[in-house]
């Protein structure tokens, strides 16, 4: 694992818009909520109550640390594993579950697999599956913000595998050339499904890829909430003061399977996982809180109880929501239904009515 918070290039810190010190207890609670949600969702998938799930366990400090260093007006371009980022943004758990279920309340109207959510109200752009595509988009949004003279940054979340994508290359290159206020936040969880980090690329670190685009590359221990927070805060300040983009590599480890479709036993050992789990970001922050006299085992026990109950109840509520209106399948292809789609919908209506289509 990396040196905590080793910055490959240190730029002078600017005064702009200094973020407040982070609330460690709030961060801890969020991390516990994310973990409990993960655990519950893995079970729900096994029970057949949701169709798919990709857990983030092991990446909580990285996600919450990054999120807490941002301002509400910043734009987030996530991948599909950013549950804790969404929660940190204030997205209600219920809205997450509505998406997992694709019910009538789902903000994305049942269009995508679980984990691929989006929430316009908190500037959390909808995730997609193709790896890396959000990276250039984040740069474009930053160019737009520059043009509008809005004092915001955009941040793209992606994995170690995504550094091999076309959009990583194009996105970082454009960001360098146009000096956009963009943070490239790579959660190196050591795996792209079964491919270990060492086989993804031969560079010693992912962070050093920044220099190919003329930008600082920062390597940070992703299990260390405060280290991540500081790295992102610094990158944000640099971006806002005109210093351009930053690539951050947060080293973490994916504790769970890639997704519920994956069997990690095929490609990694129990020992390796156990070793990684000794650096569990949740245990680490808890330890720090306890050491500082701000937390106890008893409080912790209570918190977990509460959170688990809340997660279970919220899911049960979401399960009771109405199913999607099947006719909605023809909405949102275009701003307005075209004559051709209207014709397809009319036939669809008739087929629904006649029982030809089965929901």
């Amino acid at each position, binding site marked *: 694992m990396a040196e905590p918070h080793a910055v490959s290039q240190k730029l002078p810190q600017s005064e702009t818009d200094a973020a407040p010190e982070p609330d460690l207890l709030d961060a801890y609670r969020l991390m516990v909520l994310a973990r409990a949600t993960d655990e519950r969702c893995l079970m729900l998938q096994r029970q057949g109550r949701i169709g798919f799930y990709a857990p983030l366990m092991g990446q909580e400090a990285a996600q919450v640390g990054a999120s807490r260093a941002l301002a509400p007006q910043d734009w987030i371009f996530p991948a599909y594993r950013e549950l804790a980022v969404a929660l940190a943004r204030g997205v209600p758990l219920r809205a997450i579950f509505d998406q997992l279920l694709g019910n009538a309340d789902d903000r994305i*109207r049942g269009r995508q697999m679980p984990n691929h959510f989006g*929430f316009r109200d908190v500037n959390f752009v909808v995730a*997609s599956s193709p790896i890396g595509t959000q990276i*250039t988009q*984040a740069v*474009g949004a930053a160019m737009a913000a520059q043009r509008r003279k809005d004092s915001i940054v955009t941040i793209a979340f992606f994995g170690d595998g995504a550094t091999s994508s076309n959009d990583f290359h194009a996105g970082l290159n454009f960001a360098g050339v146009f000096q956009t206020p963009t943070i490239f936040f790579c959660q190196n969880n050591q795996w792209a499904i079964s491919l270990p980090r060492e086989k993804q690329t031969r560079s010693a670190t992912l962070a050093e890829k920044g220099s190919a685009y003329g930008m600082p590359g920062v390597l940070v221990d992703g299990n260390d909430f405060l280290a991540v927070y500081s790295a992102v805060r610094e990158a944000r300040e640099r971006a806002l003061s005109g210093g351009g983009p930053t690539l951050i590599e947060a080293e973490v480890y994916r504790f769970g399977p890639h997704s519920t479709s994956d069997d990690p036993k095929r490609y990694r050992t129990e020992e390796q996982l156990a070793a990684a789990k000794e650096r569990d970001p949740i245990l680490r922050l808890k330890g720090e809180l306890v050491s500082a006299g701000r937390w106890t085992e008893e409080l912790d026990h209570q918190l977990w109880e509460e959170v688990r109950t809340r997660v279970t109840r919220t899911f049960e509520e979401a399960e009771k929501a109405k199913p999607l209106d099947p006719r909605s399948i023809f909405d949102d292809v275009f701003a307005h239904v075209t004559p051709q789609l209207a014709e397809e919908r009319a036939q669809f209506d008739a087929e629904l009515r006649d029982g030809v289509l089965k929901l």
Partner: protein
Amino acid sequence: MSEMNIVQAINRTLRDAMKEDPDVLVLGEDVGVNGGVFRATDGLIREFGAERVIDTPLSETGIIGTAIGMSLYGLKPIAEIQFLDFIYPAFDQIVSELAKFRYRSGGQYPAHVVIRAPYGGGIKGGIYHSQSTEAYFCHTAGIKVVIPSTPSDARGLLFSAIADEDPVLFLEPKRIYRSLTGEVSDSQEKVPFGHARVVREGSDVSVFAYGAMVPVAQEAADALGRDGVSTEVIDLRTLVPLDEAAVLASVEKTGRAIIVHEAARFCGFGAELSAILAEKALYSLKAPVLRVTGYDTPFPYALENVYLPNPERVVRAVRQSLQAG
């Protein structure tokens, strides 16, 4: 009103749209200082600056990816792809992202980028400066596909594209970029999408075309007219959305249909037109639906003259249709 060619009409329209709306901007390779390799963006950088006329690095992935991000944020980017043949590095961003953003976000994040790209043969550009692959995009739900064939339509359709709430692929027939001139209005009147243009009314046979094939169809119709054949020529203008009503109405009248496009035949746009007729106008058809198209080969360099449909091939197909049934 002034007389101009298609490149000039596009250039003028871009300028007018940018004057009108500060959110409109242009990006692409060589669009700034150089004014575009076909000069479609000539002079824009002087007028609007490098912030709104953006010379990008050599990456179509980057051009379309960033354009999407800009449009999510609220701007109206117009991306130029230097030749349609070079759009493929951006294909993932176009089909997986741009075309699906509104849908997959449940309507939260529409992405309304306009992509301009010169397409088609006729400039001795060989295999990579000549292709017509509009069918790929027409088959992709969520993106509109527009192809003007006159300077005046280029202006009116481009205004519509820029105003549209959906992504638009705006294909420019480079073969007639300069060779064809016409009167273009100074007003900002739009040509609405989904409305085909009856280029020439006729009663014996319908010829459907778009882009650089419209003048070819017209020439064929002229020749046929001299022999007493009354040919209806329809310029589709927008392939998505398609003016199906106009297609059906024409064939219901004439009973005979010829489809002309430069693209390869197999699974080309003509197939869809023909399929629509086979489903909805079968009983009106007096003769087989014929397609006059590029061959199912890559686009050749030395032999482009015999690859591209010409008026004589259209005339031959029309005669074949008239003899049938």
